[in-house]
């Protein structure tokens, strides 16, 4: 009974002092501040004392180059194959293709481009960062970048448009396609026998349908922000 | 009138007003806080009469101790919601008559006293009080200490929850 009393006093003093010592050590070590050094740096584990906090907007840890954050589409390399939109589990990619009358160019890896992208929108507000779209992309034009800080005041601003075509270009391309289809039909009508004609005319009629909503005004046409910190 | 006297009248009036407030208020908690004001005013009057030690004792024991006890008593026996903090009064006529009679009697008796022999002096009397407590008034002082201890234990024993008066 009595011995526990004295033991309590002893332990109270020793634990209090060790606690005070610990906190004072940290207080003194607050002279050191952690540098924004990434995990890839060899001296990442050498900074074991001092202030851990980074004053974030002013400084931030370097992101590895293979970070999986904001999606980016290199539209010059895109062949508008629509695979990414199909594989996306949350349907955040919205593509409107216009078939070109002829090959319009080549991507950097040599694939020929045959479809214009009238619209290539990615809604990053919906994106779940699974990265499936980047795996299926045949030309590797759709990639995930290391830019992670792209907060906006309006959720609509999270829709990023990668298509570079102007409304006028879209109209011209559509007209070109229509003319091409019409001329193709004529040549086909002229060349093909009558029985085949019916079967052939149907897909062309189908093709015409999506051409109807020629241009929808997009309120959120916005320059892609360069969010790399 | 000099400054000190004006101050005395103000404090005396404050003491009377707050005491009157205790008499007429219905809310018991307001009464307790009015009693705080009265007791503090009385402490100030002690300082006027060159009794600093008594004044501080008054603040310490009365205001810091007894009033806190009383407020605790009020809190444990009344609730702010169900109007129990409001307390009525009775025997008003009897009370008025007897207090007025006592007041008049006291005032008339005080009027007959010759106060000229009591000339106030200033100066420290703290050491005298200390010496007095340890010499001439040692027995009452010790008895007071014992009484306080007994009262403390008694109060705990009475207020403890156990039935049958053990402890």
């Amino acid at each position, binding site marked *: 009974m009595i011995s526990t009393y004295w033991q309590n006093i002893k332990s109270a003093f020793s634990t209090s002092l060790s606690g005070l010592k610990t906190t004072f050590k940290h207080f003194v070590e607050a002279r050191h501040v952690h540098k924004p050094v990434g995990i890839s740096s060899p001296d990442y584990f050498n900074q074991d004392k001092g202030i851990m906090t980074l004053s974030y907007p002013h400084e931030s840890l370097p992101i590895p180059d293979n970070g999986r954050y904001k999606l980016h589409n290199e539209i010059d390399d895109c062949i508008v194959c629509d695979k990414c939109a199909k594989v996306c589990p949350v349907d955040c990619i919205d593509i409107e293709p216009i078939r070109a009358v002829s090959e319009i160019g080549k991507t950097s890896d040599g694939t020929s481009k045959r479809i214009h992208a009238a619209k290539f929108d990615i809604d990053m507000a919906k994106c779940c960062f699974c990265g499936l779209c980047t795996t299926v992309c045949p030309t590797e034009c759709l990639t995930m970048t290391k830019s992670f800080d792209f907060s906006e005041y309006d959720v609509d601003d999270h829709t990023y448009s990668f298509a570079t075509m102007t409304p006028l270009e879209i109209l011209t391309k559509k007209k070109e396609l229509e003319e091409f289809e019409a001329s193709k039909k004529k040549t086909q009508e002229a060349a093909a026998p009558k029985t085949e004609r019916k079967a052939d005319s149907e897909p062309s009629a189908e093709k015409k349908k999506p051409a109807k909503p020629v241009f929808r005004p997009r309120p959120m046409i916005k320059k892609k922000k360069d969010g790399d910190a | 009138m000099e400054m*000190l006297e004006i101050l005395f009248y103000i404090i*005396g009036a404050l*003491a*009377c007003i707050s*005491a009157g407030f*205790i*008499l007429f208020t219905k809310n*018991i908690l307001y*009464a307790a806080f009015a*009693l705080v004001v*009265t007791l503090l005013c*009385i402490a100030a*009057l*002690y300082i006027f*009469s060159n*009794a600093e*030690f*008594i004044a501080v*004792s*008054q603040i310490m*024991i*009365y205001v810091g*101790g*007894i009033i806190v*006890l*009383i407020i605790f*008593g*009020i809190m*444990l*026996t009344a609730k702010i919601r169900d109007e129990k903090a409001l*307390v*009525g*009064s*009775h*025997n008003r006529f*009897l*009370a*008025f008559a*007897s*207090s*007025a009679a*006592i*007041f008049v009697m*006291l005032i008339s008796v*005080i009027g007959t*006293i010759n*106060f000229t022999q*009591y*000339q*106030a*002096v200033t100066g420290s009397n703290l050491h*005298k*009080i200390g010496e007095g407590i340890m010499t001439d008034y040692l027995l009452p002082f010790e008895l*007071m200490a014992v009484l306080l201890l007994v*009262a*403390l234990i*008694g*109060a705990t024993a*009475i*207020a403890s929850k156990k039935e049958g008066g053990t402890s």
Partner: protein
Amino acid sequence: MIPIELYFNLSAFLFAVGLGIVITRKNAIFVLMGIELMLNAANINFVAVSQSESGLLEGQFFALFVIVIAAAEAAVGLAIVLKVYSYFKTIDLDRVNELKG
């Protein structure tokens, strides 16, 4: 200096008020407060007299003892009030009228 009559008159008034509180109030704690007020009124007289030239410190000693004993009285008194409250569920002195506990 302040004439001693003033202290005495003030003390007489406070005593009368304290008496009034003790008589009119039904609540036990109110009555206790009235008693404290009366004790204080007496104390004022003791202290006022003790400032005289002959150094009658007896008045201050008496006041000191009164203050301390009032503390003891309040402690015991409030303990009793709490006990009464737990038994009668009221501290209205008119309704606490049974002797058999």
